[in-house]
């Protein structure tokens, strides 16, 4: 599917602020079949833009705005062709005990550990056990984890913040895509399935185009020996297919923050975000 994405982030400050240093992870990746044909990042006030590739090979753009300003606008515009790596619903892959092969793989190591937002503790493990009920196949276990979250957790915006720990989300069973993804990561890692956080966008079909701004989305990718990384979306209970546009991967939200930085000045600011995904 060929898709066009516009992602606008705007900060407004009641009084001028200075010395703003920022990093963005907004450029869609061109791996595993997905191709980013074009990407433009527009920053206002205008300033020099540079980039580097981080440890997970996400493309990070960075810039600074030293002079006083009362607003900061960051707009990205990309055209991407997506592919689907979805597996048939009852796909049998490898037995759970082959997962120990992943421990030796460098590319999996980080995704089996506790990370900043995914603290692996008893509650995640218990949930994983409840969800998978002795499922012998690694992929099906991950799918079950995804389905479990979708059925048992409620999508409630504003029930959580960016720093809500997963133990709390598990207790109250409420959250948004970020939280569901973190919980799923906790569950998969407890089962020793390497799992990573993916940030990106979801194309919901022409209906949404009419209903206005969409949003960034978050989902999970799990590593199955012989099958590689495969995407699962606990918020919508489906595999990541060609409607999903991948931007960045990491251990959790902290590794993929779309826009972050620091500045000097007033703590009060207004932030607005707008995302629009359309067919290209």
């Amino acid at each position, binding site marked *: 599917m060929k898709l066009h994405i516009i992602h606008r982030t705007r900060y407004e400050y009641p009084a001028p602020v200075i*010395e703003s240093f920022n990093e963005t992870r907004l450029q869609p990746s061109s791996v595993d079949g997905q191709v980013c044909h074009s990407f433009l990042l527009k920053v206002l006030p205008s300033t020099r833009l540079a980039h580097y590739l981080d*440890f997970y090979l996400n493309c990070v753009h960075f810039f*600074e705005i030293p002079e006083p300003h009362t607003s900061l606008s960051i707009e990205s515009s990309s055209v991407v062709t997506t592919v689907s790596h979805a597996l048939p619903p009852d796909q049998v892959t490898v037995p759970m005990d082959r997962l120990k092969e992943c421990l*030796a793989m*460098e590319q999996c*190591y980080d995704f089996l*550990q506790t990370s900043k937002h995914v603290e692996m503790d008893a509650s995640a493990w218990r949930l994983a056990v409840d969800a998978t009920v002795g499922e012998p196949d690694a992929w099906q276990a991950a799918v079950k984890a995804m389905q479990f979250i979708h059925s048992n957790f409620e999508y409630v915006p504003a029930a959580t913040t960016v720093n809500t720990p997963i133990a709390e989300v598990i207790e109250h069973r409420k959250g948004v895509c970020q939280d569901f993804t973190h919980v799923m990561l906790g569950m998969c890692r407890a089962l020793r399935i390497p799992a990573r956080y993916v940030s990106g966008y979801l194309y919901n079909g022409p209906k949404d185009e009419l209903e206005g701004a969409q949003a960034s989305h978050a989902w999970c990718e799990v590593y199955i020996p012989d099958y590689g990384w495969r995407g699962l979306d606990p918020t919508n209970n489906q595999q990541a297919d060609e409607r999903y546009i991948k931007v960045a991967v990491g251990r959790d939200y902290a590794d993929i923050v779309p826009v972050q930085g*620091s500045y000097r000045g007033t703590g009060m600011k207004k932030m607005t975000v707008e995302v629009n995904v359309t067919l290209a």
Partner: protein
Amino acid sequence: MPLLKNYASEDFFDEMVTRDSKVRAHYQPFVDRFGMVDMPEFEAKRRAVDLAFLRQGITFNVYGDSQGTERIFPFDLIPRIIPAHEWEHLERGLEQRITALNLFLHDVYHEQRIMKDGVVPPFYVLSAKHFRREFVNFEVPKDIYVHICGTDLIRDKDGTYMVLEDNCRSPSGVSYVLENRRAMKRSFPGIFESVGVRPVDSYSTDLLKTMEYIAPAGVVDPTVVLLTPGSYNSAYFEHTYLARQMGIEIVEGRDLVVRDSHVFMRTTRGLEPVHVIYRRIDDDFLDPTVFRKDSALGVPGLINAYREGNVSLANSIGTGVADDKVVYYFVPKIIKYYLDQDPILPNVPTYLASEDQDKAYILEHLEELVVKAANESGGYGMLMGPKASKEEIAEFRKLIEADPRNYIAQPMISLSRHPTWCEESGFEGRHVDLRPYILYGERTTIVPGGLTRVALTKGSLVVNSSQGGGSKDTWVLYD
């Protein structure tokens, strides 16, 4: 004054006397002359030195002390003496080690060959607390990661020197080396002159040269600054001391600003460019845009300036991987891999709790071993098996089972001892170690001697300043 009346080495290696209580040849000139100093003179000199240290503010702040009071680092007037040939051996070993560590760091942050070849299992590097993922594929000036290293050496019962640990992040203590020497020269000028000791005061010049060597390409007459967390830091005295000795400006994070990926100091004349930063702030606190977001000590944008090659940092970021206590286990293999040589200075025999065979051994022998947490410094988080209670041992057993990667164990080495003045009992043997300071720049320069730390409490093996240690001047002889 009878230095060695009733003094015996007992069952330890003593620096000054042999097993049959004969003074070692390289100490003889000192002992002879010291014999001519009487008690009142000795007392007077001791008091004078203490007073001088206090008034000059040669103090350190003790963490956890609610007053945040400053204390003098106690100084013992009897110097530790090393003969020239012994020092040469140490120099060669230390140079070999720091060269290997720098090559290791370069590899770990680029190709990772040593991990791919299985010599160091990747798991150990990836799980190291100070492995900085943000830093992979970064190009550093002159490919040097560790510019300043403090390596702790001890001697066992037979007098063999071994490396206890490396300190590759922000090693401190060199200011005491310099001040201790000044104190000795003032106290015993006669003895000093006649014995023939190699000088240490070129350290600050050598350090400055190293800083200048790594300046960004194309900069003539680079500006070097020392970045300190501020006056509440325990090593603040050393920061100001070194800055003054080197003739450079000492700055805090808020004095620096990044503009267009270049670093500047805010001065009364406007923004002045900064090219090299000798930073005494931990990686985590350097740049709130990249590392800890709550760090008020850092400089936003600093890492980007570093990335673009517009500023150089010493030590580089991410060097903590090399002084990780678990990576220490692999250093002999690291030396062999990059330099194809056997280590000149051996490690202390070490067991890694995450290697199954070692773990079994450790759990069986907890009462005999010293167990350390991989990432604590300053002597906290440690179990001294032979001296621990049953509860402490049981607790550590649980900790090790829960998180094996975080623990290493070593047999309790009977550190060498040195006659030291003890208030109540005269000259007694106290355990010592040695921390030489190695500068790695265009050449490797090691200040002759280094800091000899002494555990002032009888029988104690803990030499850290924060836990009741003191120091001695270290003399390397010309021959």
